């Protein structure tokens, strides 16, 4: 077997090499005198969710730049305004990597606070990590029930309320004259964490509004072929549906719907239908399809329009989510100022007790259990633009019924 005996020496060498690399990693000196607030975030900058991560990162950076333009956040403990330093680490759209990235933010970058990662499969493990290292984690885009179940002490979660969010389609449907309403509804929720959690809640909400699903089945993630399912829908005479799936899957689904000739008067997409890319991929076929959204630049709140416009200037497209991330930063900054300290526990306390006024999401108030909710919006593709149809506050458009494919 001729074992090589030079291994140990090589190993020693490589240990030296590793040590050298460690030194190469910049290590923050724990400052006796604070001159900045370090806020870290792990985000999917690469991998499947890198689009979302990029958007979220942009919103965080805007908020940090905006507050720094005002000189920073006044912290009573130091009796001065401290600028915000934002550090974003990549999680490669992988929970394990996200946890490792938190470890680095905490130990190398010595962050004072953590801002939210993206989507439940990444937010939950990072919330656990924050719990381990006792750093305050200001989270969002994580369905509330799983988060509540864990009884986290070091994080909060700002997200839509399941009951409200799942009621949206029914509230919208209720605005349609009874004769035009779809008769048979289907619930198609993606076979993922979110889909599994939301599925039953949709049913519950439907019941409350007097709607029943005549068909429901999980939708396989990333499948290139949904025709089997669409055939089932057709054979059951379905004419309205809620589709919870990623954007690629939604594109495939809608295309095959048209191919197979399944006519839906009302298709309310969740998660996969709001992107500009969805429209680009489907063109006119996307018309009349509804989409969810965390936020709208048509909201009548301070700076909402401005932030939306800034995003448009930068990326030449509209977003229905950046406002949420921007508002998340706004509430964190306000809470830090209110707490007057960089102590995580106290800032969390401040988050729970402060009434946040005038964010781009409107006013926000956290519950004692660490959650806060915002209303989920609904949009409909009309002439290539997302028109807000819900909530029915100022600026909302009426919903349109989709004609059959051959009548368009």
């Amino acid at each position, binding site marked *: 077997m001729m074992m090589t005996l030079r*291994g140990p020496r090589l*190993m020693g060498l490589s240990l030296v090499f590793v040590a050298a690399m*460690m030194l190469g990693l910049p290590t923050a000196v724990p400052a006796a005198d604070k001159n900045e607030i370090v806020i870290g975030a792990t985000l999917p900058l690469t991998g499947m969710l890198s689009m979302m991560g990029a958007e979220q990162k942009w919103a965080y950076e805007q908020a940090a730049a905006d507050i720094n333009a005002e000189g920073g956040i006044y912290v009573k403990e130091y009796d001065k305004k401290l600028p915000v330093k934002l550090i974003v680490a990549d999680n490669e759209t992988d929970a*394990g990597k996200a946890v*490792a*990235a938190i470890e680095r933010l905490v*130990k190398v970058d010595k962050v004072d606070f953590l801002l939210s990662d993206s989507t439940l499969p990444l937010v939950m493990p990072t919330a656990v990590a924050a719990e381990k290292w006792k750093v305050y984690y200001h989270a969002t885009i994580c369905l509330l029930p799983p988060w509540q179940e864990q009884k986290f002490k070091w994080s909060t979660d700002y997200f839509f309320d399941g009951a409200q969010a799942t009621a949206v389609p029914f509230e919208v449907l209720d605005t349609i004259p009874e004769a035009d309403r779809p008769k048979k509804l289907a619930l198609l929720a993606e*076979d993922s*964490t979110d889909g599994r959690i939301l599925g039953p809640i949709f049913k519950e909400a439907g019941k409350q509004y007097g709607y029943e699903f005549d068909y429901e089945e999980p939708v396989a993630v990333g499948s290139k072929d949904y025709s089997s399912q669409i055939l089932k829908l057709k054979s059951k005479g379905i004419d309205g549906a809620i589709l919870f799936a990623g954007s690629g899957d939604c594109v495939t689904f809608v295309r095959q719907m048209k191919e197979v000739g399944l006519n839906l008067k009302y298709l309310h997409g969740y998660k996969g239908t709001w992107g500009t890319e969805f429209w680009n991929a489907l063109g006119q076929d996307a018309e009349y399809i509804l989409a969810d959204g965390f936020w709208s630049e048509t909201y009548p709140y301070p700076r909402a329009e401005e932030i939306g416009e800034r995003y448009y200037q930068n990326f030449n497209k509209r977003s229905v989510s950046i406002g949420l991330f921007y508002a998340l930063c706004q509430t964190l900054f306000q809470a830090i100022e209110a707490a007057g300290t960089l102590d995580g526990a106290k800032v969390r306390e401040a988050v729970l007790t402060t009434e946040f006024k005038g964010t781009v999401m409107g006013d926000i108030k956290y519950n004692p259990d660490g959650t806060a909710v915002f209303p989920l919006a609904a949009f409909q593709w009309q002439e290539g633009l997302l028109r807000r149809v819900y909530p029915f506050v100022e600026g909302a458009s009426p919903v349109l019924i989709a004609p059959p494919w051959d009548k368009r």
Partner: protein
Amino acid sequence: MKTMGQNSKSKRRLALTVVVVALLTAVPGVLDPETSYVVFLLFSAFIYVALAQAWNLVSGYTGQVSLGNHAFFGLGAYVIAIGWSRGLIGYLDPLGMLLAGCAAAILGILVGIPLLSKLRGDYFALGTLGLGEILRLVTIQGRALTAGPTGIFLPSSSFTTIVPYYFMALFLALLATGVTYYMVKSNTGLALVATRDDEAAAAAIGINILKFKVLAFAVGAFLAGLCGALQAYYVFHVEPQGFFSLSWTIYPVLMCVLGGVGTLTGPVVGAVFLTAAFEVAKYYLPEIHPIFSGLLIILVIMFLPNGLVRLRRGRIVRNPKAA
């Protein structure tokens, strides 16, 4: 072999190993584990050492290219998650981890027997690759037992310090290396290497080829299962996507290849080196480091196909006459 008059050499090696282990044991005492990132990095490096060693045993010493490490890793993690969430095992429970390892080993045996008795190398690699995919899909469909795509959340309030993780990972790395060393140095090693070198000749001297292939495969699975179990305890959230990720196979393979396949120190060197290299890449190239990793894989294979450890040996004993 110690009977071969290499006593002084093996003593020196032993001494060096003891010194290194002693130094590593002292790390959490010297550096504050709660604030030092190095402790964490070493923790993840140790897990990779163990995983790389597990693959090395199967593929390096036995010559069966397995791409199923992540299947066993994920299975180990799920055993912990399911057991702990139902109160059957506890936090950082050694018995639970043993159970996880055994579950992985049993799966290894069940799958190994038909795959290893029927398949040539390429097919075996594909078959094991398929195994990981199947487990991932089955856990997604696993409803209440595996909590589907959501995965299982574990009581994170149990966490107090990273120190026990550090030592457990160190132990796993040592265990994997030790098991490999023991298996290779013992009669088993003779059978494994004989099988790799020439199956017909191995069978002709009385070696039950299938038995040893399956044995190595099962031991590799056991070690990977243990690693998965520890990772489950560390992340507190076991879900299909991350725990059945192919990277739990590919990175260890890459580490082995970089360090030297079929050598004892190769996987150790490779794992430590690459953990550090990826870390640095991630820090300086946050948005494009996977491109760098891909490039690194290609470059390593193209220019160091025999790894660092082999490279040195090759230079020393090269026979000038060889055509």
